[in-house]
């Protein structure tokens, strides 16, 4: 029973992804755009979930790290570089700045990181707005090209959607690898008991920095994918509000759970559509939901999923580890 449950759990993200892969291709333009946006959010949320959910390092700079990716793609694109180079540069910039921002922040106690990253997001916004020759200032950059491989062009919305899907798959697979490696275990150990983790040889500095920088690198990738979606970017898309939105997304989905970002990303793109009738009230309802969620369901909506799974198979309610336990037969 546990085995079936565990494999069901591991297959869920795959199942959701393949569904996502097929269904939106039949959508009309606007819905396809919403689905594409969901992929961007998914990539962003996976990064933040790694940083916050697994390693317990709060980041309010994910909007800024996203900007690195978007601007890398836009600026390199203007100069004729291939799109993938921009994605790579975005990820690298995210990683490097993640290290730089994370380093001083680690010296201060726990949640001060929230404020350091918050400040960083504001600085990046100001720089984007004022560094006009490079970033186009408040007007931003328009005419951002979509990728093309020789004769194959990802110009159409459907083709670009498939292209994004491939990147999302890479992100999901690499995140799965990291989280099931010994790094993932060290991240969770730090989140759960920092003092004991350190006393067992876990270098808090190294792992916290890595968790932070990797999350930021994923944000860079997400930003790179986002830029050609509308073909136009400006600093207003990378504000502190955006970072807070990502934070909420991860929390609503379920912190420290692999399924969390999937649920969060879908929720954040679908909810506004559902609540569209209420217009401006959307944010009020959203904020209220966040508070209620923290009060009554601090583990996020993934709890609902667990509940469903528990009905399907009468397995013990213990939350299974990500990694399947090694084969006991190999003992010897």
């Amino acid at each position, binding site marked *: 029973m546990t085995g079936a449950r565990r494999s069901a759990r591991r297959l869920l993200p795959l199942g959701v992804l393949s569904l996502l892969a097929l269904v939106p291709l039949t959508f009309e333009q606007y819905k396809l755009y919403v689905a594409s946006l969901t992929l961007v959010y998914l990539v962003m949320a996976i990064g933040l979930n790694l940083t916050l959910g697994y390693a317990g390092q709060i980041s309010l700079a994910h909007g800024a790290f996203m900007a690195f990716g978007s601007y890398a793609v836009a600026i390199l694109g203007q100069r004729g570089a291939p799109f993938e180079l921009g994605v790579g540069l975005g990820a690298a910039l995210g990683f490097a700045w993640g290290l730089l921002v994370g380093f001083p922040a680690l*010296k201060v106690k726990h*949640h001060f990181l929230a404020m350091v990253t918050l*400040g960083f997001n504001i600085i990046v916004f100001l720089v984007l707005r004022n560094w006009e020759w490079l970033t186009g200032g408040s007007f931003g950059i328009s005419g951002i090209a979509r990728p093309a491989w020789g004769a194959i062009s990802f110009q159409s919305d459907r083709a670009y959607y498939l292209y994004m899907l491939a990147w999302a798959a890479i992100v999901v697979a690499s995140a799965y690898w990291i989280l099931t490696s010994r790094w993932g275990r060290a991240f969770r150990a730090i989140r759960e008991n920092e003092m004991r983790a350190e006393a067992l040889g876990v270098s808090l500095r190294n792992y916290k920095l890595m968790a932070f920088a990797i999350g930021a690198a994923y944000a860079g990738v997400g930003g790179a994918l986002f830029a050609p979606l509308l073909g136009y970017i400006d600093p207003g898309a990378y504000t502190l509000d955006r970072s*807070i939105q990502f934070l909420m997304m991860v929390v609503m989905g379920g912190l420290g759970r692999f399924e969390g970002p999937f649920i969060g990303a879908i929720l954040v793109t679908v909810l506004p559509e559902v609540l569209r009738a209420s217009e401006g009230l959307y944010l009020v309802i959203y*904020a209220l939901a966040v508070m209620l969620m*923290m009060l009554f369901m601090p583990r996020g909506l993934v709890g609902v999923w667990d509940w469903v799974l528990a009905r399907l198979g009468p397995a013990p309610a213990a939350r299974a580890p990500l990694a399947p336990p090694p084969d006991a037969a190999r003992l010897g």
Partner: protein
Amino acid sequence: MTDLFQLLVAGISIGSIYAMTAIGFVLLWQTSNTINFAQGEFVVLPAFAMVLFWMVFRLPFAAALLATVLLSTFLLGFLVRRFLVARLLQTGVLPLVIATIGLSLFIRYSLQQFWTPLALPFPPLFSRVPMRLGTLLLSWEELMNVLFAGAAIGALHLFISRTKLGWAMQAVAQNRTLATVLGIDVGRLVTITFVLNAALTAMAAILIAPVYLVKYDIGIGLGLKAFYAAIIGGFNQIRGALLGGLLVGIVETLAAAYVSGQFRDAAALVILIAVLLWKPEGLWGVKEEWAS
């Protein structure tokens, strides 16, 4: 020279309002480990309340002031503590942080939706006709801001250093476990701190309203500056928040005058980063060490 002096007074004036907000923020952290991301909105809501009582209901100024402080302490002090914080204190710092972010969005966008997305004018409380001292021009508004903020902070200081409740608050801030063992009712102290914070932010609201006008989103900037002030000064010290607030006010005023208006908001950030790199516990903070 006279320019510089006038700018300093202006900086201290706005800085003293930041300081009030920052001190409340630090108090919450000390007694309840709450990082209140809604601190900016804790200023905005009373500002709207003041508009309601004074300009819409046309109550006399003193009555409107009293009503505002009462409403603020009830809503933002008592209710928030009772329904949000009490439960979340048991689940750890992170859910509480996120809940306060939710609270800030809730207050901000409720005001926008249910009242107005526009800036409401707020009449000056003190004469804006400048006072002439030799070659110096000083505004009454700035001087009175400093005076009122100084009085509020002074009263708070007396409360904390001279009363039994204040001593208990200090004890909780220093060592929660020990304070509990000594028979201090930590829960009640947390409530008192929330009420005190709400009173502080209500007073800050009344002072800042004529300066900034009353708009649903001014809390974002105010909250940030309170954060900066608290971190710059040192999170575990009330005098740290006071000095941090003044520093932020002075530096941003000078930066706006001598560099550029655009640089105003970035100035505080520059100090913040310098402090974090060079003295992460804050300029007047105390290093903490794990007790065994």
